[in-house]
C-alpha cells in the first residue's frame, strides 16, 4: 500500500524527520487559508499516488494567498497522470541550497534492506545512477542486527558530507531506516532532502507499507488506499475476461489469448484454495465490467479444488446479471467431480489450456 505524501509526512514528522510547515486542503478556499497562515510563498502539491507528478505539472508555486487560491482551484479540478486530484498539500516553499537523496528499499537479490543515498538528489536521480553510479552510495543492513547511528554517519561521509553535516544527515538516515523497520515498509524515500540555511528538510516523502503486515499495524486498516480484497483484479482494454488460479498461470492464459489474436479485458487471480463463493464473486465481478464480451476461466487445481470451482460456476450462472459466453478449462485436484458437476448442469468445458484459449478467442470473434 502506497501512502499519500501528506500521510507519509505525518509519519516522518512523528519519527523525527523534519518536513515543511503546511497543511492539507480539498478546496481552493482552504488552500488560501493555509497560505495566509504560513505567510510566505507556498508550494501546492497534488496528492496522487503516481510517480513523476512534478514533471506532469502536479506541483505549482504561489507567492501570495490569492495566487495560492488560483493555483489550488486549477489543480483541484484537474487530472494528473489519469488520477483525479482530491486533495493538495500546501507547504512553505523551501529555498534550496543543496538537494540530497536518501531511501531504504527491500533488496530482493541480497534479501536485506538496502540504503541508497546520494549528495545529488532531485528528479534526475535515476539518470545520475545510470551515468555516475559512483555517486550513489549503497549500504545493506543486517536484518537480524541493530542499525546503529555510526553506520548512518559512515554513509553520510561516503555521500561527501563534511563537518556537522555528517552527523545531521546521518541522523536522518538513521531515523529513516528505523521508520522503515517500525512500519514494515517496502520503500521509504526522501527526494529531495533539502539543505536550506541551517535546516535539513524532507521536501518530498514516499512510503509504501507491506500489505501483508497490516495485521500488526491496525492504524493502516482505515487508510483508504488499503483495500482488503479476495482476489487480485486488474482491468485491461480488451474484451475477453481472464480468470485463473495463480498469477503465473493467469498471466500465461492472457499471453495465449493475445497469441491467438484476442485481447484480454481483465486479469483476475482467484489465488489458492478458492471457495465456490469466491468463484461466484469473481465471475460476477468481471461480468459487471462492461467491456467484457467473453469470460475465460482457466483452473488447474492444486490447492484449489475443481469441484469447488464447478459449484461456483453453476451458482454464478444461476444469478448472473447478463448472459455472457463462458469458456472453461478445468483440471487438477478433484477434476472428476468438478467435471461431473459441470456436465450435469449442461456447462461445456475444456481440459487443455491452449485449446480453451483458442476457443475463447474464436467465440469473441464470432460475436
Amino acid at each position, binding site marked *: 500500500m502506497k501512502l499519500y505524501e501528506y500521510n507519509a509526512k505525518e509519519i516522518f514528522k512523528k519519527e523525527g524527520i523534519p518536513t515543511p510547515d503546511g497543511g492539507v486542503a480539498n478546496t481552493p478556499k482552504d488552500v488560501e487559508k493555509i497560505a495566509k497562515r504560513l505567510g510566505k510563498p507556498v508550494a501546492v502539491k497534488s496528492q496522487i499516488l503516481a510517480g513523476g507528478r512534478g514533471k506532469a505539472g502536479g506541483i505549482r508555486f504561489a507567492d501570495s494567498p490569492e495566487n495560492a487560491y488560483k493555483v489550488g482551484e486549477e489543480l483541484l479540478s484537474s487530472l494528473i497522470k489519469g488520477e483525479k486530484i482530491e486533495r493538495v498539500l500546501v507547504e512553505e516553499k523551501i529555498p534550496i541550497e543543496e538537494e540530497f537523496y536518501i531511501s531504504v528499499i527491500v533488496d530482493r537479490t541480497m534479501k536485506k534492506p538496502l540504503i541508497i543515498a546520494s549528495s545529488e538528489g532531485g528528479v534526475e536521480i535515476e539518470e545520475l545512477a545510470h551515468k555516475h553510479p559512483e555517486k550513489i552510495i549503497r549500504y545493506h543492513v543486517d536484518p537480524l542486527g541493530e542499525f546503529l547511528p555510526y553506520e548512518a554517519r559512515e554513509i553520510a561521509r561516503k555521500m561527501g558530507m563534511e563537518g556537522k553535516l555528517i552527523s545531521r544527515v546521518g541522523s536522518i538516515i538513521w531515523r529513516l531506516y528505523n521508520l522503515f523497520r517500525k512500519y*514494515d515498509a517496502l520503500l521509504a524515500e526522501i527526494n529531495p532532502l533539502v539543505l536550506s540555511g541551517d535546516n535539513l528538510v524532507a521536501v518530498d516523502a514516499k512510503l509504501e507499507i507491506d500489505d501483508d503486515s497490516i495485521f500488526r499495524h491496525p492504524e493502516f486498516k482505515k487508510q483508504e488506499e488499503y483495500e482488503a480484497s479476495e482476489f487480485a483484479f486488474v482491468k485491461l482494454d480488451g474484451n475477453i475476461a481472464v480468470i485463473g488460479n495463480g498469477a503465473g498461470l493467469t498471466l500465461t492464459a492472457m499471453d495465449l489469448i493475445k497469441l491467438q489474436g484476442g485481447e484480454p479485458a481483465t486479469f483476475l487471480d482467484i489465488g489458492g484454495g478458492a471457495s465456490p463463493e469466491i468463484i461466484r464473486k469473481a465471475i460476477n465481478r468481471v461480468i459487471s465490467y462492461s467491456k467484457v464480451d467473453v469470460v475465460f476461466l482457466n483452473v488447474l487445481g492444486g490447492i484449489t479444488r475443481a469441484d469447488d470451482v464447478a459449484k461456483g460456476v453453476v451458482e454464478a450462472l444461476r444469478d448472473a446479471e447478463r448472459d455472457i459466453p463462458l469458456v472453461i478449462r478445468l483440471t487438477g485436484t478433484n477434476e472428476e467431480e468438478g467435471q461431473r458437476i459441470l456436465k450435469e448442469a449442461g456447462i461445456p468445458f475444456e481440459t487443455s489450456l491452449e485449446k480453451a484459449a483458442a476457443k475463447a478467442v474464436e467465440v469473441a470473434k464470432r460475436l
Partner: protein
Amino acid sequence: MIILDENTRCLVQGITGKQGSFHTRQMLEYGTKIVAGVTPGKGGQELLGVKIYNSIEEAKEETDVNASIIFVPAPFAKDAAYEAIKHLDLVVIITEHIPVHDSMQIMEYGKRMKTTIIGPNTPGIITPGVGKLGIMPGHIFQEGDIGIVSRSGTLTYEFAHQITSNGMGQSTCIGIGGDPIVGLTFADVLKEFEEDKDTRAMLMIGEIGGDAEERAAEYIKEHISKPVMAFIAGRTAPPGKRMGHAGAIIERGAGTAESKIRALEKADVQVAEKPSDIPEMLKEL
C-alpha cells in the same frame, strides 16, 4: 534428484490445521516420509498415524527427522520457521502472505545456520517416485530426467503435465516461491541440477517482476553446461507499478518479459512461447 531424496524425513508444522492435515494425508499417500507433526499444545495426539509433538526439539528426541514443511498462518510463520531452522537441514514454507521484513530475517537466520529454505509462498518440492513436500497434485508428475524450477505454483503444474502427458518425466521439481524474498533462488536450484546425475535438462519457469530471471541468465552463461529451457509468463501484461526512484535504481531496466527473454536468449537458453512448445523442444534434445 536433488534436495528431496530417500534420506529426507520430514515433520509437519501446523499439522492439525485445515491445510496441514489435508496435505499431510496427500503427502503420506504419495509415499513421503512424514515422521512427526508439531502443534504446540497438542503433543501426544496422533493424526493419520503420525505422532504429534509440542515442539521440534521434542520431536527430535524421538525421531530422526531432518526436514520440515510449514503450514502455520502468516502471523506465526516467523516463529515456526526459526524453530525449524535451528533444528533441521531443510525447511519448506508453504505459508502465503508472510510480511517481507519477517522473510528477510528468516533468510538471514537460515544462511547463518546453513539450513536450506524453500519458499515462502511455494507449492513446495517433489521428487517423483520418492516423495513430495508440498501441495502439488502428485499424479501429474512422473519419474524422469527433466529438472523443473519455477516461481509460480499452478503454472508449474501446467508444464509438468505437458511433460508427463508426452511420455517424459521429472527428476525433481521445485517451486522457489512467488514472494519478493525467498530462500533458494533460480541459480541455487540450477546449480544443483547441473551437478545431479539424474537430471538431463532443465526447465526454468519465470514471470514478470524483479530481476531473478536476469540473474539466473547470468549464472547459466557462466556455470551451466546442460540444456536449459525457459518460459516467461506475462508478455502481454501492462507495466507494473513503480517503487519510487529506488526501485528503478536497483532494477536497472530489468523486470519486463522482454528484458528476461533477451537475457535468457543471450545465455543460449531456448525460450518457449507457449507451454506446448516445451515437450517439442525436449524431444529434439
